[in-house]
């Protein structure tokens, strides 16, 4: 494990050199064949299956998909934030060479918040209403580094300033209810980044916010990720946010990764019919007042997954081979698609 001992003071200095986020770089996070099921009274409920992807140091990766596709649960699984009693995890979560899937809980706690931090959709429910935001940010720091209250407070104020909160010395003593939604999400980001994690998992961080505030928050995340070299795993249903914030896009459908590609490639030449369908459904791409394309049918129930390709029942390009299990195939360098017809199909993307 790379030593956290050389932690710099709460300045804007990046704690490590900004790495080249290319496909060839050594992965920071490498997820291999991750599957997850929950034990329920109806039997085992398989929520994600054979999820594999990697994130390079400093890279910004978006995970997109509709509700129920398993993107949130994938994020939670990476940090093992799932109910231990019912969740069954298999596969590997290699983070800097160490497998988080089998790490003892005690060591896992040292990773959470220190090396990998997470922010959530609804900042109000993620903050404790009875402590000041300064206390909560300071606590995140003191959980991992020896510091007295005074130092923690100073670092909290610096962190609030870094995320663009005006008058941080005053705001530090505010309670969460005294802040607006956008301010609360900034507080969450300050708390997540105070230990200078190497990876930040952001689960729909802007969904509850207005569009003008959303753009402030995505700009902030992108800027901080570039300034500190923190890699970003951005979970969202908003393809526009991914296009503007990330460099790579992973599309999930029914608990599987169906496409993994550089953002521009996924937008212009999507390889999976589902990615293409999602992009074509966006109203901005159709003639004003014209009929909008949509994907027929709905996501299959977890209890009745179709065999073979899980998208096949809704797919306009389904063929005989789609009835058998689909591996992720390489369509182009660093562009993988879970579709046996990926190399032969030319699918429309976000460009009219």
């Amino acid at each position, binding site marked *: 494990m790379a030593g956290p001992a050389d932690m710099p003071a709460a300045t804007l200095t990046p704690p490590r050199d900004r790495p080249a986020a290319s496909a060839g770089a050594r992965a920071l996070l490498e997820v291999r064949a991750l599957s997850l099921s929950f034990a329920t009274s109806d039997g085992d409920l398989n929520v994600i299956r054979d999820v594999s992807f990697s994130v390079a140091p400093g890279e910004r990766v978006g995970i997109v998909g*509709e*509700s129920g596709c398993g993107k949130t649960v994938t994020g939670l699984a990476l940090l093992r934030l799932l109910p231990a009693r019912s969740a069954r995890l298999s596969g590997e979560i290699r983070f800097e060479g160490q497998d988080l899937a089998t790490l003892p809980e005690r060591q896992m706690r040292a990773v959470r918040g220190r090396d990998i931090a997470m922010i959530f959709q609804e900042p109000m429910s993620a903050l404790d209403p009875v402590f000041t935001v300064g206390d909560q940010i300071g606590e995140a720091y003191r959980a991992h580094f020896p510091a007295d209250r005074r130092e923690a407070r100073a670092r909290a104020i610096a962190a609030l300033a870094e995320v663009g909160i*005006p*008058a941080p010395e005053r705001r530090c003593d505010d309670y969460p209810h005294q802040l*607006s*939604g*956008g*301010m609360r999400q900034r507080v969450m980001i300050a708390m997540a980044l105070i230990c200078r994690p190497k990876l930040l998992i952001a689960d729909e961080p802007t969904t509850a916010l*207005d*569009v*003008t*505030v*959303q*753009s*402030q928050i*995505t*700009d902030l995340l992108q800027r901080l990720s570039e300034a500190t070299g923190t890699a970003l795993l951005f979970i969202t*249903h*908003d*393809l*526009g*946010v*991914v*296009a*503007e914030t990330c460099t790579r896009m992973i599309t999930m459908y029914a608990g599987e990764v169906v496409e993994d590609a550089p*953002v*521009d490639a996924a*937008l*212009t030449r999507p390889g999976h019919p589902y990615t293409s*369908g*999602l*992009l074509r*459904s*966006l*109203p*901005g791409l*159709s*003639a*004003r*007042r*014209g*009929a*909008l*394309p*949509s*994907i027929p049918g*709905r996501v299959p129930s977890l209890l009745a997954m179709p065999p073979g390709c899980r998208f096949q029942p809704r797919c306009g390009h389904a063929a005989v081979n789609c009835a058998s299990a689909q591996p992720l195939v390489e369509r182009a360098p660093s562009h993988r698609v879970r579709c046996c017809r990926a190399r032969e199909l030319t699918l429309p993307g*976000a*460009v009219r």
Partner: protein
Amino acid sequence: MAASVDIARPSGIDDPIVTVENLRILFPTRDGKDTVKAVDGIDFDVRAGETLGIIGESGSGKTTLGRALVSLIKPTEGRILHRGLDPATLTGAAFRRHRRDYQIVFQDPNAALNPRMTILDSVIEPAEIMKDGDDHTRRDAGLAALARVGLPRDLAERYPHQLSGGQKQRVNIARVLMLRPKVIVCDEVVAALDVSIRGDILNLFADLQREFGLTYVFITHDISVVSHISDRIVVTYLGKLMELGPAEAVVERPLHPYTQALLSAEPVPLPSALRTSRRIVLEGEIPSPVAPPSGCRFRTRCPVAQPRCAAEVPAWREIKPGHRVACHFSTIEGPPQRVPNQQYHAGGE
């Protein structure tokens, strides 16, 4: 499918089906000491057969406005006319009869359906209340309405929890159709739905409009949705109207600095090489409607605010035919340009 112009759209500048006159809606705060100015003095018309899009951030008063349009909330001041008639003057049975023409579909398709009633019972309930026909004809009408919104026959006897979100929203639309309304206010009707089925529901709304000559007031925060379906767009901010005009003009050539910023904030799913528009980042967030800023409400976040904006409430000016804007400095060319030496920010953190 063929788009745009169609039968049931009278050119109608002189044909307002809903008229909003100097409307104010105030709510007392919980401690009773202050008032929330949810809607604070606005005027506009809804034309028969059109789709009027209302766009704004949360807290801009758009939901309150939508509810007031269908008499779910009484105006504090000013009035709303339905075809020249003020529904606030009606009582009892006359009021109930009148309201069937002015209906609303809500955002959350789950909350809008009674979990203990079957789908068919929910759909025919409005007709029962209106005493339309008898049990038998109501049942037939209910089944026809469900078929019209594209739901299979066997869903009629099911309960809401057995349906998907998109199906539930179709049920809510079927229920409204039972009354053959003239105006439907759609309050964030696709916000809770996934992208892949949003298109289907929006297409259904468009088909029904053509078929029944409906007038829609479409309230949403989603710019891409509103610009796709609307004939005209109203932009609201903190209880006031900022801009109103033909949809294409408002989206392509906005006149108000707020509209311009709102449009530029929308993330575009395009590859980096094709993303051109420069984002105007607004500072801060929408102020409290309890104590809105003096003068122009947008001035605390406006990148081109001037001293005059704090002193004087901008007039609701018609700059181009059918295109109004509430900004002192907008011209026919567009919003005011940034003047570097005259930066002015009044208050607000």
